């Protein structure tokens, strides 16, 4: 499979702030790639570098095989971008903006434009000033999905959409994937990421801390296990990767690193299992674990201070 985006060791500073500190990112062609991280982690800065709007201090970035800084215009023929905060011209109608953006890219599919306006229930005749936040977002989304491009870069594109429109958005992304297009999706909506993304990259403080499929990432976290045993447990505390072990007679609850679960199950069956409940980590737990600075020891307040 070819790579749609490859980024290696990207650095970018604004004065004394190091926004990107050696960021890596690989997006395969044809996949929907989740781009995650706490506020201020550097997601939007990365996206602006990928669009050639910012010039990286050091590091390599290739988008669709091109240098985003030097070949910006040629590259942008094949890219559609939706910013998280869409600003429109107050005296231009939504339809005018959609058509303008389409023409400024590789072109616009008129049939798809009409279909998208219908699906998103957007009135294209209203002026920019009169749209709500969600409707401004829809203008940018319709322009992006109706454009004839290979790569869509979506920066928190659904932050203003209602749940119904969120569903429309997800089906549009599915359509894009089915048509073989690549999507880089920055999002805080975990259900969206879970249902759409083939792979995700998690960044923190300008660095990539994790990348892979959700299944792979889940593998790196803890599963909680509750079991009723036939006999007293034996040697559980000494197994690697076991945390928060609590034994109440024959009842055992514990947390175990998901990749170490095999040994725990062996030990439990050796004592005889009457009942067993094993819960995989929720996505929230997965992300909280990665967003926090020192895993397990940082409070949400402390994390916030760090990300500023």
């Amino acid at each position, binding site marked *: 499979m070819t790579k749609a985006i490859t980024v290696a060791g990207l650095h970018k500073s604004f004065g004394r702030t190091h926004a990107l500190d050696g960021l890596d990112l690989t997006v395969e062609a044809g996949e929907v790639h989740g781009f995650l991280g706490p506020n201020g982690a550097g997601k939007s800065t990365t996206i602006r570098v990928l669009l050639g709007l*910012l010039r990286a201090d050091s590091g390599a970035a290739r988008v669709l095989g091109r240098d985003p800084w030097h070949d910006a215009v040629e590259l*942008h023929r094949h890219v559609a971008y939706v910013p998280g905060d869409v600003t429109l011209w107050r005296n231009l*109608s939504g339809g005018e903006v959609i*058509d303008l953006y389409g023409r400024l890219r590789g072109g616009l599919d008129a049939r798809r434009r009409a279909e998208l306006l219908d699906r998103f229930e957007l009135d294209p005749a209203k002026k920019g*000033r009169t749209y709500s936040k969600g409707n401004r977002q829809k203008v940018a989304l319709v322009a992006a999905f109706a454009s004839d491009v290979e790569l869509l870069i979506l920066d928190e594109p659904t932050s203003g959409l209602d749940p119904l429109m969120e569903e429309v958005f997800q089906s549009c992304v599915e359509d894009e994937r089915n048509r073989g297009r690549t999507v880089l999706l920055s999002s805080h909506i975990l259900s969206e990421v879970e249902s759409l993304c083939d792979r995700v990259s998690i960044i923190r403080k300008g660095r990539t801390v994790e990348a892979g499929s959700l299944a792979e990432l889940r593998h790196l976290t803890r599963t909680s296990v509750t079991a009723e045993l036939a006999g007293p447990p034996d040697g559980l505390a000494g197994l690697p990767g076991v945390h928060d072990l609590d034994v109440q007679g024959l009842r055992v609850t514990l947390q175990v690193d998901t990749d170490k679960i095999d040994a725990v199950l062996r030990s439990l069956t050796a004592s005889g299992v009457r009942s067993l409940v094993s819960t995989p980590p929720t996505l929230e737990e997965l992300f909280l674990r990665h967003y926090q600075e020192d895993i397990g020891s940082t409070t949400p307040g402390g994390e916030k201070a760090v990300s500023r």
Partner: protein
Amino acid sequence: MTAVATAPAPARHSRLSGRLAGTGALLRLALRRDRLMLPVWILALGGTLVSGAGTLAKLYDTAAKRADLAESMNGNSSLRALYGPVFADSLGALNAWRLGGFMAVLAAVMSLMIVVRHTRDEEETGRQELLSSACVGRHAPLASALLTALLANAGVALITTAGLAKSTGTTAGSAALGLAVGATGMAFAGVAAITAQLTESGRLAKGLAGAVLGAAFVLRAAGDTSSHDASSVLDWLSPLGWAENVRPYAGERWWALLLLVAAAGAQSAVAYALAGRRDIGMGLVPPRPGPAEGRMATAYGLAWRLQRGALTGWAAGFAVAGLLFGGMTKGATRLLGDNEQTKEMFRRMGGQSGLTNAYLAAIVGLLGMVAALYAAQSVLRLHGEETGGRAEPVLANAVGRLPWAAGHLVIAFGGSVLLMTVGGLGLAAGYGEDFGRILGAALVQVPAIWVLAGLAVLLYGAFPKAAPATWGVVGVCLALGWIGPALNLPRAALDLSPFGHLPKLPGTPMHWLPVLSLLALAAALVGAGLAALRRRDISG
């Protein structure tokens, strides 16, 4: 407390104070935001008025010299159009004549910027919505904006009065000058208070208030070319004419100040009434739907779409101003009075045609300086698009930075040619003769306009944070062109303004060297600015 509030009269009072609730907090916010801008404006305006007297005192150190100056200046209609008539030949009166009109215009500009900045701009950006969700009354934003303008204008009046009282020897005259400038500022604060209620866009609100100021200037100038003592009907139609009629240092007419104060008060009242009747963020005209499909296909098309309204308005203003000034040419250059000295000067200047040429050259120069304001504003639209977050999504398409910038620059540079053409044709049409010569004289201003526009491109491209400083540079050039010559500033200072290098057409021979040099300089500035723009980060 509650018992009092339920009584009818206090209830009414509390409703009124409710509409103004939070004014103090908003005023402090405004002063905090403008902590740099306000002192600069106040010191620049007050300081210029005060130091002008010192310069004049050195240049015209005897009563005879001053009388001579007053006589000859008053006999020249083109100078009266620029500065108004001289009412007396004391040092204070000459200073007030030379600087008062210009400073009153600048006080008006300062005031309209302050008022729109703290009212419509806040609504347009959405910041007002959050502020208004707190304990902030419906009238508080307007009240705090007007108070900010009042403080700024009071500062100018105070510095002027205190600074000039000693050097001119009269407190009354100095106070009259300071108050005339400050009250003019407040009258236009009132204009801006109204335009800020009418439009949804802060830029348009400033533009409309600026158009009113321009009309007031044209009326005042037209009135002063046809009368020697600012008594023409046209003078009385213009707030700038009222300010002139305060006559500082020449038998102050304090009641003329009342006209300005009454105008400020009445306009503020209208603005309050409008503000109480409309929805936040909305203008008075409800937004109409636009086309569901667009025809724009290029960055040029977008730039044209964004800028065409402003250019049309400016062009219409230039046409009207040109026609008006042109129509007055013959009356203005007729030999006025039978004063020997005036006749002598008249002969020295080449008689009827010499005087006509001088008048036309002065008007053409004035149009050129105003066109520079248009060009700077049009170039800085790039800056507005970028800081407003609208450049980023456009540049994320297959649009190079240069074509994107060029779209706006073509309008800025081509638009200034259009304005000078329209203004020149209007002038010639009003005068009824000499189309070719007058149009040529108007177009010769273009290289100087382009240099200032080019400077704006350089600042925007290389030092985007400093781009608004363009206004400072343009302001200094206008000041040099307007008040510089009479202050006998050293040639080196006058040469700082590109307008100072232009041949004074019509009436003097054409010199190509300065014109071509300015064109080359403008091209270099644009080139350097665009080169820097290609290299830097675009802010989102």
